[in-house]
């Protein structure tokens, strides 16, 4: 039995504005579910988002929420967390928001290992502005700005996060929603920068242009292209060709930024005395 989440959403703001077949609604529910199952104090929880389809999610969630500037959600969230490290701070962002216009904030927030829970909705496109390619549009795929196919290479978001210093990194999909809930819950438990890449789908601005079929077909693609990391360990490289890994990809807790900051303040206060 999945939990009743009505109290976590602004019911008067529903139905949402995402297109039929969009994966973002499923992902937004998983965030609510992970929060409900993690026993968080809802009064001490803040949700910060940037700009784009992903970042509409904060508007539907019944918390203290901030809908900030394009690419800057992590910068705002860093300020929120530093001002009161006791708060549970979630950041909802997208592939364009977090890795293009906000790429710098992304690597530096990860580098500091600041205790934020980041859910990155990856729909492989700038959906809200009508389908321009993002750093996560796969090479070769069509977008309004790549009518002959995208010639650029993509970020590997988990690899980028790990290399930058994130202490918890996982990936789920709109199909593997239960796994996504578990990953977000692990991220909440982790004291440090937690990055969960949530693979979504955009039938309107990406799927249609790339002849990917119905939203159900796209959901099925997520199902068949994803391989759980525990299963992948037993598979040969040939079998993993064209697949992507899901589950907890990295978990290595180490010194967290707001704690180190508090320690510094304590130390200097003592030295002054």
């Amino acid at each position, binding site marked *: 039995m999945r939990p009743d989440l009505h109290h976590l959403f602004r019911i008067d703001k529903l139905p949402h504005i995402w297109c039929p077949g969009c994966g973002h609604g499923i992902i937004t529910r998983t965030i609510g579910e992970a929060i409900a199952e993690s026993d968080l104090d809802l009064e001490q929880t803040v949700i910060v988002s940037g*700009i784009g389809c992903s970042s509409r999610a904060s508007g539907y969630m019944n918390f203290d929420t901030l809908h900030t500037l394009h690419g800057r959600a992590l910068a705002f969230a860093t300020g929120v967390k530093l001002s009161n490290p006791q708060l549970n701070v979630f950041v909802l962002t997208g592939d364009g928001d977090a890795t293009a216009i906000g*790429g710098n904030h992304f690597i530096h927030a990860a580098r500091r290992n600041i205790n934020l829970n980041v859910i990155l909705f990856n729909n492989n496109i700038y959906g809200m*502005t009508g389908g321009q390619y993002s750093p996560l549009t796969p090479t070769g795929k069509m977008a309004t*700005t790549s009518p002959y196919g995208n010639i650029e290479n993509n970020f590997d978001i988990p690899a980028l996060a790990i290399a930058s210093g994130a202490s918890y990194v996982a990936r789920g999909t709109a199909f593997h929603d239960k796994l996504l809930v578990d990953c977000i819950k692990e991220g909440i438990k982790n004291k440090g920068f937690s990055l969960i890449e949530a693979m979504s789908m955009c039938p309107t601005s990406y799927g249609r242009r790339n002849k990917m079929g119905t939203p159900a077909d796209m959901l099925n693609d997520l199902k068949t292209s994803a391989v759980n990391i525990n299963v992948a360990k037993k598979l040969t490289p040939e079998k993993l060709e064209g697949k992507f890994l899901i589950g907890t990809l990295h978990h290595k807790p180490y010194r967290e930024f707001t704690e180190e900051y508090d320690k510094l303040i304590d130390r200097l206060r003592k030295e002054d005395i």
Partner: protein
Amino acid sequence: MSELKMEKKHFLSGDEAVAYAVKLCKPDVIAAYPITPQTVIVEKISEFVAAKEMDCQYLHVESEHSAMAASMGASLMGSRTFTATSSQGLLYMCEMLHYVSGSRFPIVMVNANRTVAAPWNIYGDHRDSLSQRDSGWIQIYVENAQEALDATIQAYKIAENSCVSLPVMVNLDGFVLTHTYELVDIPNQEMVDEFLPSFTTTNKLDFNNPKSLCFSASPEWQTEFRYQQYEAMEAAKKIINKADEEFGKIFGRYYGGMIEEYRCADADYALVAMGSVAGTTRLVVDKLREEGKKVGLVKLRSYRPFPKEYFQKLGRRVKAVGVIDRDISFGYEGAVYSDVKGALFHPGAQVKTINFIAGLSGRDITKEYLTEMYQKLEAIDKGQNIAEVQFTGLRWT
């Protein structure tokens, strides 16, 4: 007029009209980043490039800041460039706006006027571009899609004039102009080529004449650079008028250069408006004229440089002037109003003035509102006491 018949009428949105203008101006490099309500411009251009109807490098960059940086990089190689933005995007490239104008690169950009957050809102007003008043860019405001097309072509002519060599921002109202359709004449290529020759400049990197661009200038020289920018803006006043005249001779459409007067010759009361609201105001002027009211419209096309000399003269001929501001400079009054008032009150002027703050964040400026504005101008002229700054259609006071 046989040449004019060669123009073809198309049913276009303001954004599409701009895209056709850009195509006709043959830029070498286009930097694009999407933002509502501008996105259709760069999207339409990408279709032209894809269809090989345009021969240019098209860059899809990762932010507006990068869009302007890439445009400047291309411009300093001697290329003609184009980019478009709006609202938050314009603010994000603010640092680059100053960098481009200070380095004197004649970049042309179209800004789809949209308000700025917070609160978030995607609809139109002039708060985005007016906040960039002092960035050193020429700012032109247009009334309809045809003017958006024509002003974009004129913008290159103005920017690339060697006496000017400044960037130009063409502003069209978000949604009201960007997303509405009208019949637009698309000039033929030969006529545009005649009006706008290919771009040549000495302000570029050249292996045969090595030089340093974007350098530092110490306090000993900085003032002289700023003086040159000041002079270039003053020179632009003539060039904007001249470009419009030349354009009119070739294409048969005139816009008045920096300002256009509508039924002002014998007017007692004039409203000053920028952008699409000028169109509605014309209708109101006609209606009030039928009723015997001596009213007129001053359409302000060039906000920077500002036609100070024109308003100095206007202040001696009319009894009252109202300025419609689709913005507010918090702590004072509408930004356009301050400038108009400053010029009107030339010694000898007895004119009365009111500032109408209207059309913020996409709220309509209706004919009824405009009629009320003219009534208020008459009322202050007759001695009635009316607060100087009026918020039009306010839900409460």
